[in-house]
């Protein structure tokens, strides 16, 4: 038996000795993949993407490292079209680990569009698929999705509450969430209705309420000046004097403009605060990716 094995080994050795090496075609899958990796490493991302796609179509296999690199490219370039293609063509054939990564990027893109309905659908779908349980997404990813949904629904206090547990644990890895928690805690809204009411009573005070002191002050000064001039000329020369009507109209016009400005100023203040909060969450997606 041993002799037979030994003879077989010798025969095989001599066969390999005289075997001619196979040559690869430049467009063969291993070379296409190697070229794509080379392009990715050199920073030619668009070219690398097209080579990876060629590789996928040639082999009909979706190697994890190639899929991750294409996902990286789409995430870096914020390429929604590419991600949609990935969801349609690659997602069903990928391993669960790769699918979770693609889902994370999907969540980041939907949040970036501030699409409340789509994010809610995504969140509920993933919850129903059991990805929020053990073995699914990581706990910090689940927290990020939860907080993202709450922020999109404008439930900032609830988002702060969700983050509160993180703060108490004091884990280093969640330091980014602590900053978001503080922003949520300090998040204050200005009521446009109250801004309008304040300006109706004391012109310019609605803008002070929204934090714009000098605009409110100049409105107050302008309205007071025109009103007092109209009253003065009314008393001096009677109501038929052209100045009464001119100054009176200008005072009325400024008053209406101030009311509108106070209302929209409060809205703009709220929108600005909200946008800053959303940008912080976008940053969290970048960090966690």
């Amino acid at each position, binding site marked *: 038996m*041993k002799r037979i094995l*030994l003879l077989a*080994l*010798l025969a*095989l*050795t001599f066969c*390999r*000795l005289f*075997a001619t*090496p*196979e*040559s*690869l*075609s*430049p467009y063969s899958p291993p*070379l296409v993949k*190697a*070229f794509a990796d*080379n*392009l990715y490493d050199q920073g*030619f991302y668009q*070219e690398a993407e*097209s*080579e990876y796609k060629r590789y996928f179509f040639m082999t009909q296999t979706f190697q994890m490292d190639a899929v991750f690199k294409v996902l990286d490219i789409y995430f870096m370039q914020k390429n929604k079209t590419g991600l949609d293609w990935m969801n349609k063509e690659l997602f069903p054939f990928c391993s669960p680990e790769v699918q979770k990564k693609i889902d994370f990027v999907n969540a980041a893109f939907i949040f970036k569009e501030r699409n409340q309905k789509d994010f809610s659908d995504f969140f509920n779908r993933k919850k129903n698929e059991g990805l929020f349980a053990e073995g699914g997404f990581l706990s910090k990813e689940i927290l990020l999705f939860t907080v993202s949904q709450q922020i999109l629904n404008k439930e900032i206090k609830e988002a702060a509450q969700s983050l509160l547990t993180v703060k108490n644990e004091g884990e280093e890895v969640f330091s980014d969430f602590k900053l978001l928690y503080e922003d949520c805690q300090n998040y204050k809204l200005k009521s446009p209705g109250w801004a309008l009411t304040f300006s109706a009573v004391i012109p310019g005070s609605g803008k002070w309420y929204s934090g714009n002191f000098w605009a409110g002050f100049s409105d107050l000064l302008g309205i007071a*000046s*025109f009103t007092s*001039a109209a009253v*003065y*000329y009314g008393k001096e020369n009677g109501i038929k004097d052209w*100045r009464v009507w*001119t*100054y009176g109209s*200008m005072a009325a016009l400024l008053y209406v403009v101030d009311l509108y400005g106070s209302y929209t100023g409060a809205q703009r203040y709220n929108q600005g605060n909200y946008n800053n909060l959303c940008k912080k969450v976008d940053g969290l997606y970048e960090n966690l990716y």
Partner: protein
Amino acid sequence: MKTCIRLLSLLLFMIFSLNSAWAQKVSADECEQVFFYGENLWNKDCKKEAALEFLRYVFLQDYQKGSNLAKAYEYLSDYYFLVKDYDKALNYILLKENENPGSTGQALDSDFIREINIRAARAEKNKESLRLDLNLWTYRHTGDYSQKVQIAAWKALMINEAKNDDWNFFEEDYLTFINKYSHFFTTEEKEVIESSLEKIKAFKAKKPMLAAYLSFIPGLGQLYAGDVKDSLNAFALNGSLIGLSIYSICSGNVSDFMLLEFSPTVRFYRGNLYNAQKDSYEYNEKKRTELREPVLSILQAM
């Protein structure tokens, strides 16, 4: 004995297995096909796709040395020059120069001239001076390069100085150039360049701050900057507002002045001051472009 034979066989088997793995490579014909395919795409104006194929050809050099690597680098350099990525264009032309050490002088000259053009385009894009470029200095001043290359380097430098309005440096370099290559410009061209230089030296730019101060009399600053239409507009508008304000104050209608006339008068008067400054900047830019044009057209035709 048997153990020795077994061990020897195993060793031989391992050696030849490895060898056969190393021996897998791309055939020379197929490698060159990639280059020719790229060239075909280039000629059909599919330059982006052609560049990808040339990149693939460069990558394949690890598997099979090709005979068109220098040409591939040249195409890549041309492509990145077209898309204005001058750093990559320069990188590839330098690779081509290193790849072609044994070429005839003709091939090398065209590479150097390409490199000079890329450096000039990059300097223009980044608004830099080529005077400090060591490579260009080497091309101009060392005798290792042909006259064609030296002239191309001088041309790039002088165009760069003309576009950046560095006329003192331009004059110095122009004089050095005509001392070295006195027959390069025709007599008419030399006269045009020299008269343009005189006009440029004699040109006195309008001072924006002086235009602003003169505009304390509305319209005078714009007139100084050469814009008669703006001057009349500013004079009429500001004049009427100031006149109305003076009338209101003199007739005792201080409230009319404060509430109706003061704010528009101040705003339009301030606008008049800024407008005079803007007019003088525009005048200077227009005049410089006019004076620069004859020199640039001669240099670019070199």
